[in-house]
C-alpha cells in the first residue's frame, strides 16, 4: 500500500484525512483505488488528457511528469504527494 498525501482542497473527499493508504502497482492504479474509497477524487486529479494541468503528482521527491507519468511504477513504501497549483500570500 502506498501512502498518499492529500492537499487541503481534496480533504473533503477523504473525510478530512491528510493522508490515506491506497493500493496499486502504478500511479494510475493508485488513483483508481483512491476513487473506490473516496469517490470524486479521480475527477479532481485527471481529465481526458491525463493529469490535470493544475495538479502536480510526486512519487517521493520526483514529479511523475519527469518519470513515466501515470504509468510510473510504485513500491509499497512509496509516498505519493498531490500538490495543486496555488495562488495566495
Amino acid at each position, binding site marked *: 500500500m502506498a501512502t498518499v498525501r492529500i492537499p*487541503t482542497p481534496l480533504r473533503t473527499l477523504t473525510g478530512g484525512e491528510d493522508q490515506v493508504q491506497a493500493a496499486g502497482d502504478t500511479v494510475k492504479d493508485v488513483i483508481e483505488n483512491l476513487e473506490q474509497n473516496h469517490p470524486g477524487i479521480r475527477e479532481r486529479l485527471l481529465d481526458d488528457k491525463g493529469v490535470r*494541468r*493544475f495538479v502536480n503528482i510526486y512519487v517521493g521527491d520526483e*514529479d511523475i511528469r519527469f518519470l513515466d507519468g501515470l504509468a510510473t511504477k510504485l513500491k509499497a513504501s512509496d509516498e505519493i504527494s498531490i500538490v*495543486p*497549483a*496555488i*495562488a*495566495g*500570500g
Partner: protein
Amino acid sequence: MSTSNPERGALQHRSALVVGVGGLGCPAALALAEAGVGRLVLADDDRVELSNLHRQILFDASDVGSDKLEAAERALYRLGARPGSIELVRSRLLPENARELVRSVDVVLEGADNFATKFLCADACFLERRAVVHGAAVRWQATVLTVADTGAPCYRCLFEDLPNGDAAPNCAEAGVIGPVVGFAGALMADRALSVLLGEREVFGRIVSYDGKTDRARSVAVGPRATCALCGADRTIDSISYARYTAPSCAA
C-alpha cells in the same frame, strides 16, 4: 543565502521588482532591502487591512487604512533600506504596464494572490528575458519556483494556463497561515539574491513546503516541449488582455 560585505557592494548596483506587497512581498522586500539591493520597486494598489497584519510584516495596527506602498516604504527605510532605494508603483501588474515594469529591473518577485497576475508576470518576464521568482502560499502549503532569464523551464511549463472554476485553491477560499507565507516570502528573497549575484543553480527548481509536516521538497522542473510560452512552437509572443481574466482575493 547570506550576504557578506562584498556581496552588499554588488547588490548596490542591482534591482528587483516586488509584485504585490502582501504576505509574500513584505518579507521578501524586507530581506532584499536589508541585503542592500540598490533599487527596489514595489508594485501594489491596496490599502492595509486588519486581516493583513498576521502575515504582512511591514505593517502594524497604526497602518490599517493606509496606502500599502507608503506604509511599506516607511517601514523599509526605518529598518535599514538604502536611502533612495525604494520606488513605488501604485498599480497592480497589468497587461498595459507589465512589460515595461519587468524590463526595468534585474529580477522580479511575483507574490500575487491570483492566477491571472501570475500568468501575466510569467509571460512578461519571458518576453523581456527577465528572471522571475514565483511564490504562493495557501493554508499550510507554499511553493516557490525560480525561472531563468533565458525563459525555460517556465511557470507555464508546470501549470499551462489559468484554472477553471474550483480547480485550484486561492487564499480567499482557503486562508493563509502567517508563518508559512513568511517562510515562502523569505525563500523568494533568497532565490532573488542568488539570481542577482549570478548564481544560476537556483533556476528551474520548484520548492514545495508543507508547514504542517515540516516537509520541504526541491524538485527540478523540466521544460515542456509543448509549452505555449517557452516551447519550440510557442504561441504567446505578446501580452493580450483577454488571456488574463480571473478573480483576486484581498483577505
